[in-house]
C-alpha cells in the first residue's frame, strides 16, 4: 500500500516535471510546477517531514500564483508560445540521458539496500525544527530576512524603472 502511494506520487512528480519542460506555454508550465511541488509535499509526509510538507504546499501555490500574475501582466501567455527550438536538443538529449544514467547508477550502487523508508519510522517534530533554527542555525536564520529584504528592494527597483531611464 505504502509502495503504491510512493510510486503514484513519484510518477505524478515526474509527469508534471516532464510536462513542465515539454510545455510551450509558460502559464501551463507554472501550473505543472505547482503539481510537482504538491506531489513532493505528499512524499515529504512519508519521510516524516510534516512541517516542510505544509510549507512546501503553501509556497507552491504562492509561486504558481506569482508566475501566473507575472505572465498575465507581461502578456507572455499569448505572445510567449516559445516557438523556436531549443539551443541544441540533438546534442543535449543524449548528454542528458547519459547524465541521468550515471546519477541513477551511482545512487543505486552507493546507497545500502537495507536502508529503507517506512511510514512513521521517523517523526520530524516541528518543535525540534524550531529548536534547531533558533539555537544551531541562528545566523543563517537571521541572514534570510536580509536576503528577502534585498529581493523586495530589487523587485521594486526593477519594476518601477521607466523604460527610457538607465538609472
Amino acid at each position, binding site marked *: 500500500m505504502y509502495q503504491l502511494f510512493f510510486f503514484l506520487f513519484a510518477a505524478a512528480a515526474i509527469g508534471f516535471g516532464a510536462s513542465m519542460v515539454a510545455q510551450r506555454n509558460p502559464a501551463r508550465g507554472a501550473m505543472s510546477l505547482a503539481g510537482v511541488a504538491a506531489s513532493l509535499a505528499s512524499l515529504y509526509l512519508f519521510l516524516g517531514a510534516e512541517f*516542510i510538507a505544509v510549507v512546501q504546499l503553501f509556497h507552491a501555490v504562492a509561486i504558481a500564483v506569482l508566475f501566473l500574475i507575472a505572465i498575465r501582466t507581461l502578456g507572455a501567455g499569448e*505572445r510567449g508560445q*516559445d516557438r523556436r527550438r531549443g539551443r541544441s536538443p540533438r546534442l543535449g538529449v543524449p548528454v542528458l540521458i547519459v547524465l541521468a544514467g550515471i546519477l541513477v547508477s551511482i545512487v543505486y550502487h552507493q546507497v545500502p539496500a537495507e536502508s529503507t523508508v517506512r511510514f512513521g519510522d521517523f517523526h520530524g517534530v516541528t518543535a525540534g525544527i524550531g529548536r534547531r533554527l533558533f539555537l544551531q542555525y541562528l545566523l543563517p536564520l537571521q541572514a534570510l530576512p536580509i536576503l528577502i529584504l534585498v529581493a523586495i528592494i530589487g523587485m521594486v527597483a526593477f519594476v518601477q524603472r521607466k523604460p527610457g531611464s538607465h538609472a
Partner: protein
Amino acid sequence: LSVPISYYLILSALLFGLGVAGFFFRRSAVSMLLSVELMLHAVSLTLVTFSHAFRELDGQVFGLFIIVIGAAHAVLGLAIAAAVFRSRAEFHANRSTGEEW
C-alpha cells in the same frame, strides 16, 4: 511495506535532470526560471530524504532555507524579466525577435 532510500534519491536525480533539461532547452525566460525552481525542489527532496536516513532534523532545516531562497529567486527573476520585457523596445540586447517571452 517499505521503499528503499535509493528510490527517493533516484526520483530526486531525475527531477534535477528534468530541471537542467528545461533550463537548457527552453528559450523563454519564464520557463527557465520555472526550471530552476524545479531543480531547487529536487535538491530539497534529497535533503529531506537524508534527514530521514540519518534520523536528524538538519536536512529539514536546510529544506526550509531552500524554500525561502526559491521564493526570493522567483520574485527577483520575475522582476528582472518584467523590467527587460518593458524596456525591450529600445533594448534589443538579445537581438530579440519578440518571441522569447
